[in-house]
């Protein structure tokens, strides 16, 4: 990148349209996602938690960049790899940790766990254990938005693998014919579990399918937050104006395994290492420094403040209350009938 200082006047939209505070908050959230997951992974390895977990380490620019463009009243539907979306939409890590530890203080009172952590208050309609499960739900939320004459949007996260589910097809078609305010964000990390997109998918890019639904298909570098946010600015503006949905594909990579049981037999160490060099967080830090928005000291300060928040959140969770067996059926129905 040629020294940005030289042309402060024609800064790219991402920098031109966001305050330093806003940009720093984005960086801080990327750290939060990263450190939340590293800490979660660590407690899992130490046997402090059970179940499984899907880490988005390496994908933070996509999660934070997409949600940065949203209001509280906008909705998201998230996935099994949803910690970043959850934080991006405004959730606090302490309640996420508490959920992860299965405590009553958790966002889901310990009912949901890693795969289902979500804060409905912040417009997160839920993570999902079913690949593609959130696609039509986002369409329905957008339908409600339209019926209620609001100018909010629904952002639907899904993976490259999910794009081969029938739900993808039905959802994009409905969103298109009804011109709904949905942004379909495909976080293409190259694999659906162990199967690479070229083995599972008939087209090189998921966005290549957008014309089949008569909607714009946009491809961005999902590890570059500026690219992600700028594409989102266009897509959300279009949606809020009632011009319909967009399919946005963020090319990214998960540097961790698919889940805890993954032995990475389907990809090479080298591929993983190459992508680690494109880690979205240092990329963003360097750009912020290059643009003179922060200096190295502030970068460290931000990271440290995140460490503090993570530590506090972790401690809060560990000290949380375990659900009692008699509360098992408490949250099944809004209106109990027997």
């Amino acid at each position, binding site marked *: 990148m040629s020294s940005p200082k030289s042309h402060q006047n024609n800064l790219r939209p991402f920098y031109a349209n966001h305050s330093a505070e806003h940009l720093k908050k984005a960086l801080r959230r990327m750290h939060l996602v990263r450190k939340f997951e590293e800490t979660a992974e660590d407690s899992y390895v130490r046997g402090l938690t059970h179940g499984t977990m899907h880490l988005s380490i390496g994908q933070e620019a996509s999660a934070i960049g997409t949600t940065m463009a949203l209001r509280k009243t906008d909705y998201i539907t998230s996935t099994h790899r949803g910690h970043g979306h959850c934080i991006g939409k405004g959730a606090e890590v302490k309640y996420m940790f508490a959920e992860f530890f299965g405590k009553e203080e*958790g966002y889901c009172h310990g*009912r949901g766990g890693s795969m289902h952590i979500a804060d409905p208050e912040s417009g997160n309609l839920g993570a999902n254990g079913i690949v593609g499960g959130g696609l039509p*739900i986002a369409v*329905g939320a957008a339908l409600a938005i339209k019926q209620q004459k609001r100018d909010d949007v629904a952002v639907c996260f899904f993976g490259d693998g999910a794009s081969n589910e029938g739900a993808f097809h*039905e959802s994009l078609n409905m969103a298109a014919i009804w011109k709904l305010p949905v942004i379909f964000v495909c976080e293409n990390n190259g694999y659906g579990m162990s199967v690479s997109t070229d083995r599972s998918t008939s087209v090189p890019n998921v966005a290549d399918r957008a014309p089949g639904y008569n909607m714009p298909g946009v491809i961005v570098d999902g590890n570059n937050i500026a690219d992600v946010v700028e594409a989102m600015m266009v897509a959300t503006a279009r949606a809020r104006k009632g011009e319909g949905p967009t399919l946005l594909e963020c090319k990214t990579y998960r540097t961790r395994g698919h889940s805890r049981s993954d032995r990475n037999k389907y990809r090479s160490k080298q591929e993983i290492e190459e992508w680690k060099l494109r880690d979205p967080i240092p990329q963003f830090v360097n750009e912020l420094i290059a643009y003179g928005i922060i200096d190295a000291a502030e970068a460290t300060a931000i990271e440290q403040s995140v460490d503090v928040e993570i530590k506090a959140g972790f401690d809060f969770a560990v000290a949380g209350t375990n659900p009692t067996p008699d509360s098992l059926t408490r949250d099944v129905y809004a209106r109990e009938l027997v």
Partner: protein
Amino acid sequence: MRELSFAQALGEALAQAMESDPRVFIMGEDIGTYGGAFGVTGDLVHRFGEDRVIDTPISELGAAGAAVGAALAGSRPILEFQFSDFAGLAIEQIVNQAAKIRFMLGGKTSVPVVFRMPTGSGTGAAAQHSQSLEAWYGHVPGLKVIQPSTPYDAKGMLLAAIEDPDPVLIFEHKLLYKMKGHVPEEQYLVPIGKAAVLREGKDATIVGSAIMVHKALEAAEILSAEGIDIEVIDLRSIRPIDKATIITSVKKTTRLAVVYEGVKTLGIGAEISALIAESEAFDYLDAPIIRLGGAESPIPYSPILERAAVPQVENIVEALRNLVQSRA
């Protein structure tokens, strides 16, 4: 006394709910201009417009998911499946999403959606258009499952379903759509979860649902001519089941038969039988609990075979006669 058909009663419930609550809307295949495959939605699209009476593409999974999403976002969707058989394509959204989202989110949201399920055989539509799978959904915590048998209940139960904060599936037997009966003009609710004793008797209890309730009543008439006095209970709700009403009846009559159209094995009769066999009513039983359910086969096209595939009045009469005559 104002009479409406079962289909008209449902249509009136939809119309009144949309009039009194702007959040309510209906979606489904061919429910607009066409008026619904069974005429339930009739001219509603002309009264409420295409934004509230939405013809969906033929995308059952997507439509069900859209209903779930709309419910989460503050609307009150009612989705008509053209035939409940096709809900299989959407069962992921009904069972993994609608039924579980509230629980998975620790009770912080609810999913007030209604799925309308035209059900049952008798129309010559064969194996893929004639199933009675209400037992499947009755097995799923988080769902409520109801099945009206009269126009009066059809309206009141659908209104109760729309008003309920949880996902409700209403199974509508296709052979009932044309049935006429008294239906009050005003809005009223028939509570979900309550069975109804339609006929009092002392010799044996029949628990039935939907179309089988009417066959049971017919059978009871025939049997009363023989001096056999049958109590007939309309189950009405499959999840939850009104245990108390059935137990009380069985303690009185000491004999129980369950009649249902769904496949006998693992159908609703299995649950009702098991409920009694594990309840205090067990000690009152003077005879085995019998089940008359659908045959262990898909629904055939041939009218002769189709008739043989589900319990008929004569089967009920004979079974109850034997049941009552069986040793005390």
